[in-house]
């Protein structure tokens, strides 16, 4: 059994999808969390390919880039998709989600209060509704984005909406298939356990 060590800041952030995938796959790993203020002194002595975290160490080999790590863990958990085409569709849906997720993150991280209020309104009115309508179309009646079983694209969608619904509580109302995706993810035993036990953090 390989040993997995995930290193990230003490937030959900870019690492949470990875943690959810380890959970869904019931794969044990070391979940190392670094406080922001400790990073400047740790960075020069940390084994990071590009000076950034998260990183995943697997039996001594270190990789960075959260989506590369997530795809690797999804593979170990059997959640990539069954065929090359299924895997490509899962990738495509995650990439599309990240395009919107980026706008959301920019809004959340905006320090100026009045600019943030503007961005929040714009995201909620201009970007989020078309995204959800589009993804409702992508979701199957079975509550899966790809094929007929859980893949990492379902979990990625769940994770992103977990962040988004904290700012826009009713966002998923009325989206039958997307709500089924969310339910499918939450009822995965490994994910359910992690959601109950994970540390509560602001981000």
């Amino acid at each position, binding site marked *: 059994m390989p040993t997995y060590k995930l290193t990230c800041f003490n937030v959900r952030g870019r690492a949470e999808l990875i943690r959810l995938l380890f959970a869904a796959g019931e794969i044990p790993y070391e979940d190392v969390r670094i406080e922001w203020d400790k990073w400047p002194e740790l960075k020069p002595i940390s084994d990071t*390919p590009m000076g950034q975290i998260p990183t995943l160490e697997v039996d001594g080999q270190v990789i960075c880039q959260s989506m590369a790590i997530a795809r690797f863990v999804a593979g170990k958990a059997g959640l990539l998709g069954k065929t090359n085409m299924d895997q490509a569709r899962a990738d495509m849906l995650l990439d*599309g989600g990240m395009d919107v997720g980026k706008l959301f993150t920019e809004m959340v991280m905006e320090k100026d209060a009045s600019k943030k209020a503007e961005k929040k309104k714009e995201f909620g009115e201009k970007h989020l509704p078309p995204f959800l309508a*589009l993804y409702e179309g992508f979701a199957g009646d079975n509550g899966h984005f790809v094929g007929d079983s859980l893949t990492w694209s379902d979990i990625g969608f769940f994770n992103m909406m977990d962040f988004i619904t904290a700012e826009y509580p009713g966002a998923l109302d009325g989206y039958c298939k997307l709500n089924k995706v969310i339910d499918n993810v939450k009822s995965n035993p490994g994910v359910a356990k992690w959601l109950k036990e994970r540390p509560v953090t602001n981000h």
Partner: protein
Amino acid sequence: MPAYKLTYFNGRGTAEIVRLVFAAAGISYEDVRLEQDKWPELKPKTPMGQVPILEVDGTMLCQSNSIARYVAKQAGLAGKTPMEQARVDMVMDVMDDMGKKGNAVFWEKDEETKAEKKKEYEETFLPQFFTCVNKLVGDSGHFVGDELTLADITYFNTTNLVGNYFKLPNMEEFSGLKKVTEHVTSNPGIAKWLKERPETPF
């Protein structure tokens, strides 16, 4: 053999990585280049209202990196083991960060801010970035394993695209990256494509 149809505007842009992978793999495909006035008609038929798209026996894929990874997997150019594939993905994402940062500078509206950001990108960011990325190249002169992968091709393509607008540092200093470039440009399929590909403004 599936029928592959790639649709994009008449330029390199985000489609070029896919064209290079097809070229390296020796896989034939239809390279559709849209004129701007044909785009409004096609747009609602695409999965996310964007190009490039790849049609494979009737199924449509979008998102250039996902398409590139799919074609690379079909061609055996995406890494041989899960860890190799993760390393290929890592290099793709690292190069994506560099490209996106350059794009943000390119699209900056304020001329004075743009000039400042361009200077910072060229004189500070790129030298540090390439120094880091150079260390990721193995003794084989490839990013992953000892054969050409999508990682090598992505490095070459992004650097090539960025270099069209920005002044790159002296790349001779980065011996690993030099070897990667040589491997990519001497791949017969890629060499042929680089000679034959249309000259386009982007």
